[in-house]
C-alpha cells in the first residue's frame, strides 16, 4: 500500500523516541526532580518538542502543532490512567491481606479494632449495603424513569422547570441529602437510625442519575418510531411501552446500573442516618444498619494496623461488587442491539 509507513519513516520515529528517552534520563538525573512523575513529564515534553520541531521544519507549522497536540493528548490519557492504576493496585495489594473466609461469614459484633484479622468480618456490611441498595432501587427506578418519560413523551408545560430541577437535584451533595432525611424523617418521625433512613437519602441521589441518563437515552429514540407507532393505531402508552422503551432498553438498564454504582459507595448520608451497626441486621426499619462504606470508615478511623487492613479489605470487596455490577451491565446492554 502506497500510504503505509515507509522504513524511513519508521526509522525516523524510532530515532526520535530513543533520543527522547536518553534525554529524559539525563535530564532527570541531573535535576532535583525524581520519581516516576518526573520521568513521564520530561519524556512527553521532550517528545512533543522533538516531533513538533521535526514536523515544523519538514511540513510546516500546521503539522508541527498537530505533532505537539498528538503528544499532549497521550499525556492526557496517561494522566487519567495513572491514578486508576495506582488506586486499583493499592486496593488489591493491601486489601488482599485482609481476605479470609471469615471475612464473609462473620460480622464485627464480637471483634475489636486490634483483634487479628481472623476475628470478625464484614458480612453485616455486605448485607447492609445490599439492603440499602434494594430499597433505594424500589423507590428510585420508578420515579427516575417516570421523570424521564415526562420529559420525553408527555412534554408538558412544566418540562423546562422539571428538567432544571432534575439537574439541580443531581447536584445535591450527599451530605445535604443526609441532613434532609435527618430533619424531615428521622428527628420528627422515627427518632432513631435505621437502614430505611439511609436508603431514603440514597434515593435522593439516585433518582436524578437515573432520570437524566434515561432521558438522554429516550431522546435518542427517533421521533419517527413514535410516529410510526401512533400511525399504526397505537395509543400513546402502548407506543411508549412497546416501541420506545424496548428500543431504549439497554440504555435504561445502563441508567439503572449507573444509579446503583453512584450510591453503592456513598458514605456521608449513611454516617448520619444508619448508625453503622456491627451486627448483621435483617430489618431495615429498626436498629443500626451496617454498610460497606460505614465499615470502611469505622475501620480506617480505628487507626490500628489491623483495622486499616480491614478497611482496605472492605474497599476491595466494594470494588469487586462495583466491578461485577459494571460487567453485567455492559454485557447485558451489548447483547441486545447496538
Amino acid at each position, binding site marked *: 500500500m502506497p500510504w503505509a509507513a515507509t522504513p524511513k519513516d519508521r526509522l525516523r520515529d524510532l530515532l526520535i523516541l530513543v533520543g527522547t528517552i536518553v534525554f529524559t534520563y539525563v535530564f532527570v538525573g541531573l535535576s532535583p526532580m525524581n*520519581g516516576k512523575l518526573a520521568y513521564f513529564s520530561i519524556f512527553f515534553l521532550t517528545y512533543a518538542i522533538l516531533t513538533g520541531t521535526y514536523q515544523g521544519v519538514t511540513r510546516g507549522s*500546521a503539522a508541527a*502543532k*498537530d505533532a505537539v*497536540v*498528538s503528544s*499532549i*493528548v*497521550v499525556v*492526557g490519557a496517561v494522566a*487519567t*490512567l495513572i491514578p*486508576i492504576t*495506582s*488506586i486499583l493496585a493499592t*486496593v488489591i495489594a493491601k486489601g488482599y491481606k485482609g481476605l479470609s473466609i471469615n471475612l464473609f461469614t462473620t460480622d464485627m459484633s464480637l471483634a475489636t479494632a486490634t483483634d487479628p484479622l481472623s476475628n470478625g468480618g464484614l458480612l453485616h456490611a455486605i448485607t447492609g449495603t445490599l439492603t440499602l441498595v434494594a430499597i433505594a432501587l424500589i423507590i428510585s427506578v420508578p*420515579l427516575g*424513569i*417516570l*421523570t424521564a418519560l*415526562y420529559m420525553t*413523551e*408527555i412534554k*408538558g408545560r*412544566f418540562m423546562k422547570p*422539571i428538567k432544571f*430541577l*432534575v*439537574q*439541580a437535584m*443531581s*447536584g*445535591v*451533595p450527599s*451530605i*445535604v*441529602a443526609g*441532613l*434532609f432525611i435527618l*430533619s424531615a424523617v428521622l*428527628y420528627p418521625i422515627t427518632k432513631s437510625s435505621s437502614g430505611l433512613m439511609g436508603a431514603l437519602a440514597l434515593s*435522593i441521589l439516585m*433518582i436524578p442519575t437515573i*432520570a437524566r441518563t434515561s432521558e438522554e437515552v429516550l431522546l435518542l429514540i427517533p421521533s419517527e418510531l413514535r410516529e410510526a407507532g401512533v400511525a399504526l393505531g397505537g*395509543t*400513546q*402508552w402502548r407506543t411508549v411501552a412497546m416501541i420506545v422503551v424496548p428500543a431504549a432498553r439497554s440504555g435504561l438498564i445502563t441508567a439503572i446500573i*449507573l444509579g446503583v*454504582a453512584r450510591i453503592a*459507595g*456513598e458514605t*456521608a448520608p449513611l454516617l*448520619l442516618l444508619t448508625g453503622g451497626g456491627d451486627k448483621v441486621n435483617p430489618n431495615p426499619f429498626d436498629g443500626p444498619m451496617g454498610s460497606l*462504606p460505614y465499615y*470502611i*470508615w469505622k475501620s*480506617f478511623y480505628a487507626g490500628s494496623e489491623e483495622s486499616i487492613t480491614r478497611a482496605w479489605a472492605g474497599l476491595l470487596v*466494594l470494588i469487586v461488587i*462495583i*466491578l461485577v455490577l459494571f460487567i453485567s451491565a455492559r454485557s447485558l446492554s451489548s447483547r441486545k442491539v447496538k
Partner: protein
Amino acid sequence: MSIAVDPVKPREITTQPRLSDRVFRGIVTTGGFSSLLILGLISLFLGYRGFEVFRNEGLSFITSSEWSIVFDESGNIVESNFGLAAMLVGTILCALVAVIIAVPISVFSALFLNFYAPAWLKKILVAVIDLMAAFPSILFGVWGFLVLMPSVEYWAKLLNKYLGFIPLFEIKPYFATRSPFVAGVVLAIMIIPIITSVSREVFAQAPLDRIQAAYALGATRWAMIKAVVIPHGRSGVIGGAMLGLGRAMGETVAVFTVLNIVFQVNWHILLGAGGNVASLIILKFGEASPYEIKALMAAGLVLFVLTLGVNALADFIVKRTGKSGR
C-alpha cells in the same frame, strides 16, 4: 379554488385521549414532579431546622469564621458563635483547584480516545474510565490519605521552592500535608472520569460530514479538531466541567481525610487550613448538641444553595454557549 378574504378559524379538536392514556399521563406527570417535591422539601426542612441559628447569627453565619459553643454547668447555652466563611472559601478553593486540574486532562483524554486511539484501545480505556467514575468517594479518601498525600508532599515542596514567589504557591511557616491542594488533586482525580465521559460523548457527536470536509480540505488532525470538534463540543464540555465542579464542592468523605478543618480563611492552596463545609458537618455531627445540630443544618442549607447556584449557572452557560457556540 382558493378562498379569499375572511381567514378561516381553526377547529377545536375535542378528542379525549383514551382512558388508558389519561391514566398513563397522570402517572408519568406525578412521577415527573417528584423532583420538584423533593427539592422543595429539602429547602423547607433545612431552613426550618436551621432557622434559629440564622436568626441568631445573621449574616455573620456566612462572613465570620468560627465555631464555638459554650455551656454552663446546667447545660444551658451561654454563648454560641457560628460562622462558615473559612469553610465556604475552602469549599470553593478545593473545587476550583480540582476543576482546573481536571478539565484539561479530561478534554485531552477525550480527544485521545475519540480521535487518536486505535479502536481496541479505545474500548478498553473507555471501560476503565467508566469504571473509575463508579469508584466510591471513600476509596479516594482512604487512598488519598495513605498513598497520594506523601507523594504530593514531595511535589508541593518542590513547587514552593521554585515557584514560591507566586502567592498561590507560597506557604510561610511549615506547610501541612493536609491542604486544599491535596484535596483539590484528589477531587480532580474523582471528577476526571465524569468530565472525560461527557466530553467524549459530545466530541463523538461532532458532525461527521464536517469532519470529512475538513480532512478533504487538507487539514491535519489537530486542525480538524480545532475547527469542527471543539466548537461543536464546547458547551458540552463546559457543562461537564460544571458538573464536576458541583460534585467537587459537595464531596465529603473523599477529602475529609486530607483536609485540616481550621477556622481561618485560607487562599493558599498549599497551607493546611480552611476546610470544606461538608467535612465540617461530618466532623461536628458525632458530638453535637441539639443547638449545634441546628447550626449544622443551617450549614447544610448554605451548601445546598451554593451547589444549586453553581448548577444553575452551569445550565445558563451551557444554554447560552449552545446557541452561539456552533
